[in-house]
């Protein structure tokens, strides 16, 4: 996994609440292998209409945001289905971070397994950021994970909060199975001592 330390990148606003993982990766693409095409599934039904024509209003279809690596989204981003493909397609499209007032729990959790940084900020601040992104010609945001701060001209430095374990995982690009194997002895002990009185299981 690619570690995440600091990121200075173009950001794009997705000013809608409850963007569920069916919108991020429509269900018909779930069976697809994760190959070069995987990124093209991202937001497919929001990006294109029924006839396969681009929807000009959708943020990623606007030239200004076509190279964005950060999304500043509405409440409850990534709610719904547990499909990790939603994170795969974002990452494969070059996104490294999503900023929102809240996230679907499973999406949030999946992000850390793929080097995608989800940042929770108060809704008022998210709105301010979105306005900045709309107003500026090439709006960039800087994220520093080590110090848990983001910076843009509109807000100057803003602190965000993240679970220290998850922060460490991103900073080091830590693989969870490797990490857990360090606790092999504790797992063995649990299986030996704590499962004996649960024969019914």
């Amino acid at each position: 996994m690619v570690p995440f330390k600091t990121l200075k990148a173009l950001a794009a606003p997705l000013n809608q609440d409850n963007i569920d993982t069916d919108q991020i990766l429509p269900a018909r693409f779930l069976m697809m292998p994760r190959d070069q095409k995987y990124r093209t599934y991202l937001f497919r039904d929001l990006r294109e209409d029924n006839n396969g024509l681009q929807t000009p209003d959708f943020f990623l279809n606007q030239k200004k945001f076509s190279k964005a690596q950060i999304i500043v989204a509405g409440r409850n981003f990534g709610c719904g289905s547990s499909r990790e493909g939603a994170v795969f397609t974002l990452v494969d499209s070059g996104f490294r971070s999503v900023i929102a007032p809240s996230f679907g729990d499973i999406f949030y959790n999946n992000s850390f397994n793929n080097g995608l940084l989800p940042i929770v900020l108060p809704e008022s601040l998210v709105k301010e950021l979105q306005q900045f992104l709309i107003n500026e010609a090439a709006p960039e945001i800087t994220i520093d994970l080590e110090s848990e701060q983001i910076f843009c001209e509109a807000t100057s430095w803003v602190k965000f909060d993240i679970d220290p374990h998850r922060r460490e995982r991103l900073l080091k690009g830590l693989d969870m199975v490797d990490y857990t194997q360090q606790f092999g002895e504790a797992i063995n002990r649990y299986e030996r001592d704590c499962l004996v009185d649960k024969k019914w299981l």
Partner: protein
Amino acid sequence: MTKPKTLLDKIWKRHEITINPAGQSLLFIDRHFCHELSFHAFNMLEKRKMKVRHPSRTIAVADHYTPTTGEDARDFKSLDRFKLYNTLKNNALEHNLNFLGLGDQRRGIIHVIGPEQGFSLPGTTIVCGDSHTATHGALGALAFGIGASDVSHVLATQTLWQPKPKKMRVIVKGFRPAYVSAKDIALSIIRHIGAAGGTGHVIEYAGPVISSLSIEERLTVCNMSIEAGARAGMIAPDETTYKWIEGRPHAPKNDNWKEALSAWTLLKTDEGAIFDKEYEIDGQLITPMVTWGTSPEDALPITGLVPDPLEETNAEKRANLKRKLEYMELKPGTSLTDITVDRVFIGSCTNSRIEDLREAAAVAKGRAACVHSIVVPGSGLIKKQAEIEGLDKIFIEAGFDWRPAAGCSMCVGVNGDLVSPKERCVSTSNRNFRGRQGPDARTHLTGPAMAAAAAVTGKLTDVRSLQRN
């Protein structure tokens, strides 16, 4: 005196192997389910050349991509779907997992067959790469959905790192009026707390209305927890639970049963235990519900009207509401019961159990469906039971399309059971997201009796108006 604990605290503590310096718990996972989309996780395992740590703790079940027209290879709607099925089968064989495949009567939707087989038990931790894993919490388990990386982690280590979630309790007090289903209770709760209301929380459902529910009904309520944003939902096990589980194939037997029972009776929230959030809902006020929009929180009593964006003072909410109504092609102020529909789906991990089929059949009996309506049982055994009770005949005589093979079907449509673009479907499933049942499909969520009512009238219908004397 020890601090009063919640049901969640108790299950958590029993499964905590260790805590890391950042305060995350390494939980032992008792039960795990795989399905066709677990292929990413098996690929990850393969890359590491790792084996499954405890094969007997995982059941692999084909449910998402399987056909509902029959149990045969030729019933698959496409070759790639059949290949996906075979991939699961091969992975299961290679890793020596329990596998329920085509032609096996025990096969069905994971969240139906886990409890049905007695594999999902009180006090256990249960995970699956599917957000509706919350369903199993109805038996007093901690059950939640995970992504592919975590699935591979569970296969490899039988554990998961988790931060301790916040605790929420939803008490449904009073009593439940006639014609109000478990689905109506779930939709009322989601409407009340919102689609993100449960984010970061595990919900414990309690109170007299919840205790009076059958296990099938409890499974429906817990199933929808994720639609309120919660990772999991749970209900403390009681006599109803024990009776329901006893004798099921994987349920404990003889001395083990007695031992299990004595462990399970401790599984309740102590008096005075503290929740981070508590809600109280008055059961008497719950009515048959239907969704009008594109989030499960967009639910209203069937007697209601399509909301009017002009009445929304917040500009952004107004725009959002307009967008939903445009997608759903609904006019503000329309009576919900004036909305005509194109098709009906009765099934899914929310509402495909025997009681759901009975409720729907009671409405369908002696009437005729006027729109295409499919009924998909949740498992092979439910199908068999329905046939013993003659429910299949009732549906068929009423012109419903009774499907002989169980699966997720039109809830997510990946097996090819799709709603066409612009079609309006009344569905007993759990999500009315844009495009959920197919590109540009419009979904109205209801319980099974309300869905059958829509099938025989061709519009959203208050099931109480079809009351027979």
